[in-house]
Every structure is written in structure tokens, then in C-alpha cells.
């Protein structure tokens, strides 16, 4: 079985965010970039399935040069080879333009099973997996928390409000990983050493058979007009009083200010 995993490199969630001079992006200096947490789950699931069924895992990312670190992490976890979509033309992509490029990778590599994370932490669009599936003409399982491969079919449970739903789809297919699917492993030292020798293939827009106006900012359907600091939440009163008094204060607040009672 051939697996393809898409990973995005994102700022560590602990990072202090500073808005850049253009008012639309963040200052990258000093930012620690990591593999998006949901994408670690996607990688782990590919590893588990490969361990059970055999095959090969390709990991792919679209992004600037620093993205290579994310690929090395995935290789160190156990992926076999990597593809790096690196081209100035990919820059400034929204979800649509991102999916356009990733769907072209799917067409080129023809994998049996494709994994993505539920969301790229930070921008949190929660779109790219489903868009890739649509553009590649494949079925998908969204927000997958349990996966079973059964011959040429897969069955997955997904979280819905107040319960779970089981989706069945024929291969090839796309699985969008949600927390709970597995516990991602840490790369072992041996894996880190081996990762250094694993191949990373660079692909440009032309290599994917796309034109520059289909990807990046030019191919995007939305654009960030502004990025701003949120209005600071004003801390209200802080009370250190007897529990009974505190309880009365909470009820009064719920009634009078929140009008929730």
C-alpha cells in the first residue's frame, strides 16, 4: 500500500505572535516552527497502517525552505521519503490554492491512502483535507478518530456533536486526522540519524504541471486584508471571599450582567 501524508509547518502554539510591518503576516524571526500537532497524528496513523499492511510512506509539505525541518521530523518518525513543494509561486496561498497544489501531488504519486491533519494549527482553516479530496475526485473521512482498512475499503469513525458516525469509503481515499486517532510517537535517535539519509525531492509549480496563477496568492480565493491584535479582554473584578458570598456573587453576575438566568 502506498501512503501519502501532508504536513504543514506552523508556529509553536507557545510562540509570541507579532504582526509584521505589512499588517497581514506575522514576524517569523525567533518563531519556533513545528509540525502541526494534527499532522503528527496523520503521520502516526500512516506508520501504524504501514506496520500492519506493509508499503511505503511519502510525506509532503508545501512551504518555504524552513519546511524541510518538518519533513525531517516526519522522516525521523519513520516515513520513507519526502516531497517538498518549494517555489516562490506557492507563497501566500489560502486553503484553496494550497489544496490545488496538494491535489496535483496526489495525481502525480497516485497513492492508495492519503492522510492530512484536521487543521493547520494557527490559521485553523479546517479545509485543506476535504478540498484535496474533492479536487482529486476521492471520498474522505473527516475528523477521523478510529480507522480500519478492510481490503479495498476503509471504515472510520468521526466525531460529531454528541456522538460518533462511521463512514465507509473505497480506496483510494483521504483521511483527515482528529485528535484521539492515536498517540504520535517521538522520533528515536536512530530514526533521526536515518532521516538524514532519506531523500527529499523538491518540486516546483512546473513539476506539478500547474501554472503560477493557479497557486499561491495568485490562485487564492481569499486574502488576508489585515491581521490585528484582538481587543484586550478587560479583566473584571476579582474576589477573595467566603464560598457562600462568592456563590451569591456568581449568581448575581449570571442574572444581572450576563442575563443568563
Amino acid at each position, binding site marked *: 500500500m502506498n501512503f501519502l501524508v501532508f504536513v504543514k509547518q506552523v508556529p509553536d*502554539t507557545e510562540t509570541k505572535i507579532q504582526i509584521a510591518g505589512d499588517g497581514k503576516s506575522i514576524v517569523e524571526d525567533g518563531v519556533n516552527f513545528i509540525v502541526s500537532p494534527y499532522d503528527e497524528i496523520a503521520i502516526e496513523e500512516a506508520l501504524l497502517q504501514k506496520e500492519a499492511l506493509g508499503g511505503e510512506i511519502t510525506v509532503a509539505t508545501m512551504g518555504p525552505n524552513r519546511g524541510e525541518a518538518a519533513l525531517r521530523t516526519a522522516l525521523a518518525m519513520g516515513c520513507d521519503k519526502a516531497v517538498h513543494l518549494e517555489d516562490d509561486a506557492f507563497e501566500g496561498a489560502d486553503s484553496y490554492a494550497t489544496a490545488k497544489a496538494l491535489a496535483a501531488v496526489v495525481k502525480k504519486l497516485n497513492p492508495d491512502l492519503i492522510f492530512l491533519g484536521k487543521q493547520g494549527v494557527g490559521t485553523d482553516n479546517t479545509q485543506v483535507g476535504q478540498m484535496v479530496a474533492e*479536487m482529486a475526485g476521492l471520498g474522505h473521512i473527516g475528523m477521523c478518530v478510529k480507522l480500519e482498512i478492510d481490503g479495498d475499503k476503509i471504515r472510520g469513525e*468521526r466525531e460529531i456533536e454528541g*456522538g460518533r458516525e*462511521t463512514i465507509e469509503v473505497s480506496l483510494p481515499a483521504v483521511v483527515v486526522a482528529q485528535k484521539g486517532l492515536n498517540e504520535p510517537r517521538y522520533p528515536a535517535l536512530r530514526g533521526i540519524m536515518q532521516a538524514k539519509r532519506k531523500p527529499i525531492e523538491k518540486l516546483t509549480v512546473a513539476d506539478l504541471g500547474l501554472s503560477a496563477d493557479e497557486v499561491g496568492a495568485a490562485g487564492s480565493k481569499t486574502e488576508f486584508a489585515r491581521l490585528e491584535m484582538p481587543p484586550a479582554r478587560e479583566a473584571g473584578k476579582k474576589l477573595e471571599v467566603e464560598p457562600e458570598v462568592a456563590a451569591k456573587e456568581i449568581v448575581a453576575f449570571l442574572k444581572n450582567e450576563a442575563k443568563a438566568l
Partner: protein
Amino acid sequence: MILVFAEQRDGVLKKASKEAVSEGKRLSSKLAVPVAAVLMGKGADQAVDEVKKFGPDKVFVTEGASLDQYSADGFAEATANIAKEQNATVILFPATTMGVDVAPRVAAQLEAGLVSDITGLEVANGKLVATKPVYSGKAVATVNFKSDIQMVTLRSNVFPLEENPSDPEVLKVDASGISPKGVAVSTELKEGGKVELAEAAIVISGGRGMKGPENFPLIEEVATLLGGAVGASRAAVDAGWIDHSYQVGQTGKVVSPTVYIACGISGAIQHIAGMGSSKFIIAINKDEDAPIFSVSSLGIVGDLFKVVPALTEELKKLG
């Protein structure tokens, strides 16, 4: 036309769908174009009366067994077909697990821009302008559309629900030509009757300060008395005290209730990412320097094991 995907399950219209139709109605007057609701899946017929309360000019109901069971690609194809036929320029979805699963496929089919989980929507020069929190709520992005068709998913509990009854034309749409790829073969709903976390007007969450699973009934009782839902921090989930489906935050659910009550939760940035857009935040924490207090409208410095039971008593007095 403005199209609103109004999620229903077994004839029950989601609260988030009502909010989306309400917002569709408001946009309809701002943009001076009609608004239509789209219902699909088993029970769609039974949801028509409910959706009429929120003022659509038309209601589309799909017909055909192929869409009885949920299918993201099937539902997307049906929605996109209606959008094309009606020349829809705006499509709204609730940011439910269904809306979030279907909308990107519709956007891909229609080559439309899509902004997810938005908390604000304005009209400028006839185009939509959406706002959404990014980077764990550390920044807010204002997003413009470059495409002719503009799509958004609306965060629950943010856009006001507004009854505005209408007498719309109800149109059946034949969906028998659609053959879905990924199909729901079973659905398992637990804890019937409980208020859904993402839709609750009041959420009371417990963190590591709860000390163990045996103490969660303390906040469950308050939730029941308030008609709200229980949530949790990742520390409580990782400790195995409560299921992940209750987790609020960066890697859990994003909630936006009228009131969020945090009990024994320190207020890490990844937790705030999931509840920072709540209208009011009340925190109960024994550490007066806990970061949660800096975002709280009301802070109680104290032992939750004393304050929460006292709160329960006080609420019971209200009857």
C-alpha cells in the same frame, strides 16, 4: 441568491443552523438579494416548518435515497448543484462537524473562497468581509474574498438567532443522480438529552484542579441546573478523567457561550484559544495569579471544592 446550508438530523434543525439562517436573512437585507435554506438527509422534510421561522424566501429540500445517510461528498454535490442553478453568490454554513466537512468540498467545486469558523461578517462595497481569530486567539484576521462566490462557516453562538417567520416556496430537488463516495453506515449518539458543548449558552469546565474523575459530578450538577454543558481542559482529558470530546481549546472544541465558567483551570494560551470568544468568563481558581483571571469578567479566588458546592446550593434556591 444567498444559500444557507441548514444542517438537520432526523428532522431536528440544529441551533447553529437557525443562527446561520438568521444571519442569511440579515445579509439578505444588506445585499438586497433573496435568501434560501437548503435541507438534506433523512428527515429533511420534517425540518421545513422549523426553518421557516427564520425567514427564508425559499427552501430547497433534496429528495432521493442516495442522500438519506450523511455523505460529505454527496451533500456537497447537492449543495453545489443548487448553488449553480440559483446563481448563488453567498453560501453560509454552520461551523458544525457536518458544515465543516461539507463546505470545503462545495468551495472546491465552485472555485469559491471559504473562510472558516468566523466570528464576524460585514458587507463592504457589496462584498463580504469576514473576521476570525487566528494563532490561538492571539490575533484576529480580516479576510476579503477574491472569488465571485463567497462562502463562510459561522462559529456557533456568535451570530444571534432571530425569529422572522416567512411563507417561503418549498422546492424539491431531485438528488437521485448523485452517487456518494464516503457514506455514513452508522451513527452512535451517546448521552441523549444533554446539551451539546459547542451549542451551549453556558459551559462549565473543569481542569487539573478538579483532582479526579470522581469530582466531575460537582460541575455536572451546576451544568444541569443552568441548562448548560460540561467541558474540560486538556490536563483533565490527558489524565483520563473525562473523554476527549469534552476538551476545550486549541486541540479540542472551540466554544463561544454566553458564559464560560472555568474551575481549576490555569488559563494556558491553548485553552484560551478554545473559549476566548465567550461573552463572559467566570473563573474559580485558588491561585490569585492564575492567568485565567486576566481574561475573566468575574474572578473568584478560592477553593473550587468549597465554591462550586456553594454555587449549587445558591442555584437550587432559585428553584
